[in-house]
């Protein structure tokens, strides 16, 4: 078939004209109407809760919110790419401390003021610091909850195994685990298949070994290092719990491990308050209680690790700033935070929330006397490689027996000393 010269030229002209006109038109189209907001999060498990809350928000304001959660492990990559490309959501969940400092320092988040979000004025400086920039010390997010890590247990299974008193030292804890195992019950639901949860397990049992807050202050100042024998002992404490985990622990993922505790197959689970909503979603009648991690030795102080779980921030490039601020104020409201405390097991940063869950209430009360900052999250996530990046796969190697606690501690020190000035040149 022969196409005439004229027709061919016509076709090319039409194609060029269409692309010239359509390009700017498409580019200038708003991402969404002003009364519709997009809201991203890493909490896939809380989707139903947020959708219910966004329906309440719509009733109050007429603003529609599209809540989209992404898989926790990929959230940073997805959000970074979207924000850098100039798109991204209007409102989003922000990682605490150094988790997203490069994004905040690059001006991707709207700096918040107490005029925009009055609830910020009621928060303590320590809480606010969790979602501030690193080089640019501005408030880029509304801190929403405090996380607490400790030891959860099933009182019914402990009774069934003949455990009469809760263990208060690490030695008695291991003895109780062995007793439970001998009764055919899985002593500890935790496994080694998920690297981040191993770091959290260490954050629960470790501080009493390395000396909690005084050690935290010393490594931050640079007067002590991660190769300290007490820090090495804290790593070893995680490995020593492996015999009490489910069989083939390396093949057990995070949700399976949590499911073992939720479905009353495992007596203990070491984790955070944020696990409780997942447990209850699987088994609403689960009897769950909580205790601080046992002391390293008789007389040693017991610690409860805590940190700001994250914040809610606004995209600096949002085309719906007033609506996004309205949403942030709703997320700071008593109504929303009470619902989050009741349904998600949050320990909200807002001071006026009543915690009804006895286990979570106990966690919150323990903070005043036993709270200690999550060493690797609060202190060492502002540079790369972070201590967590080394520790998480390191724990998998340690629990598999392919490295030692001393070698892992040495690697953590090497990573931190490569970028953290007070630790430079120290080994």
């Amino acid at each position: 078939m022969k196409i005439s010269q004229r027709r061919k030229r016509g076709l090319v002209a039409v194609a060029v004209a269409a692309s010239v006109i359509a390009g700017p038109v498409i580019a200038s189209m708003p991402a969404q109407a002003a009364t519709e907001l997009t809201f991203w999060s890493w909490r896939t498990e809380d989707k139903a809760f947020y959708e219910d809350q966004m329906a309440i928000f719509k009733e109050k304001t007429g603003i529609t919110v599209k809540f989209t959660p992404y898989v926790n492990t990929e959230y940073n990559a997805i959000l970074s790419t979207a924000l850098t490309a100039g798109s991204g959501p209007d409102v989003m969940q922000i990682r605490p401390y150094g988790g997203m400092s490069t994004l905040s320092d690059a001006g991707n988040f709207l700096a918040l003021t107490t005029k925009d979000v009055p609830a910020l004025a009621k928060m303590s400086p320590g809480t606010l610091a969790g979602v501030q920039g690193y080089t640019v010390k501005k408030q880029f997010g509304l801190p929403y909850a405090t996380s607490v890590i400790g030891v959860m247990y099933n009182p019914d299974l402990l009774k069934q195994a003949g455990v009469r008193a809760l263990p208060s030292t690490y030695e008695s804890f291991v003895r109780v685990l062995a007793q439970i195992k001998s009764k055919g019950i899985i002593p500890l639901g935790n496994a080694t298949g998920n690297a981040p949860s191993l770091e959290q397990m260490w954050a629960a049992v470790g501080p009493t070994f390395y000396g909690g807050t005084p050690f935290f202050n010393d490594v931050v100042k640079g007067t002590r290092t991660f190769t300290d024998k007490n820090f090495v002992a804290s790593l070893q404490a995680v490995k020593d719990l492996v015999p009490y985990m489910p069989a083939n622990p390396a093949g057990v993922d995070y949700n399976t491990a949590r499911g073992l505790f939720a479905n009353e197959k495992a007596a203990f689970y070491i984790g955070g308050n944020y696990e409780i909503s997942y447990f209850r979603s699987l088994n609403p009648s689960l009897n769950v209680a909580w205790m601080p991690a046992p002391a390293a030795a008789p007389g040693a102080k017991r610690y409860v690790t805590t940190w700001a779980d994250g914040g809610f921030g606004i995209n600096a490039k949002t085309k719906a700033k007033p609506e996004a601020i309205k949403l942030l104020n709703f997320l700071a409201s008593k109504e929303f935070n009470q619902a989050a405390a009741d349904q998600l097991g949050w320990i909200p940063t807002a001071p006026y929330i009543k915690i009804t869950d006895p286990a979570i209430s106990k966690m919150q009360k323990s903070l005043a006397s036993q709270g200690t900052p999550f060493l690797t999250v609060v202190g060492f996530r502002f540079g790369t490689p972070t201590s967590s990046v080394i520790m998480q796969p390191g724990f998998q190697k340690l629990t598999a027996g392919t490295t030692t606690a001393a070698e892992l501690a040495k690697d953590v020190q090497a990573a931190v000393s490569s970028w953290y000035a007070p630790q430079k040149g120290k080994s």
Partner: protein
Amino acid sequence: MKLSGIKREQRKFRWLLLSPGLLIIIIFTSIPALTTLSYAFFEWKGFVRGSWAGFENFNRLFSFPFRDQFLMAFRHNTLVFIAIMVLQTSFGLLIAYALFNLTRGQRFFRTVTFLPVIFSLVIVGYMWQILLDPYYGPINLIVNELGQPTWARAWLGDTATALPTLVFINLWRWVGFPAIIFLAGLNAISTDYIEAARIDGASEGKIFRKILFPLLAPSMTIITVLTFIGAFEWFDLPYILGGSNGSPAGATDTLALMFYRLSFGSVDSGANEVGVGSALGVIIFTVVGVGAAVGTKLLRRREVEM
């Protein structure tokens, strides 16, 4: 020499038809590849480009802790290439030869062999995750039923078995591809050679070794080069089954996963490392480009003219 009017017209029309494809390649492949090359020589703060850094990103890639990760990932990619070449290509060749000799039902078995190739990789990954589950997976249940409980293990969770298990899943999914390429190669060989050899009294084994296999060299070149490129850019299956950290403990880490992790960050990495990631990208590009070019040249030499 002047081109005739028709030829000039044909040439113009050829370029017109080629231009959409060329534009897509230039915009989405060539420009990103070249810019990545340049990114490797700058300082980066998140996704914001800083000042000229020379070879600093390459130095950092070969320093603690990236050096160990790089060497481990490189070793995994190399092992995967060898394993796929030995196992997948051999099985593919065997299947192709079996299909070639089938007188009835060749079409049906050809479809069956190729079917896993068209399955969604995500579905394949999750299906194998369920099959290999250490508690509820049928594979461990079968092993236990056979009276060998010590053989049951956390296939994807054990650092010793995770990578071989991924190679096996890859083989299950992709074996149909070399099989079809080899089958096409076998079908292209004139039956005159085979019949002449049979008249001369050659055995089936000898026909395969002396006639079919040497004449399959062009197919072998394609398979080897594609396997090499695929193995050194292996990302999808390890990502689905081991996450971006190459879990457990980096046992399934590959160069492409490391590139992704460095360039885009992870939950616990704090900031991303676009510069070091780009330096790694340059190395992957060089390894794959040089390897594929040298491989093609060497393999083409041993191809036999029919």
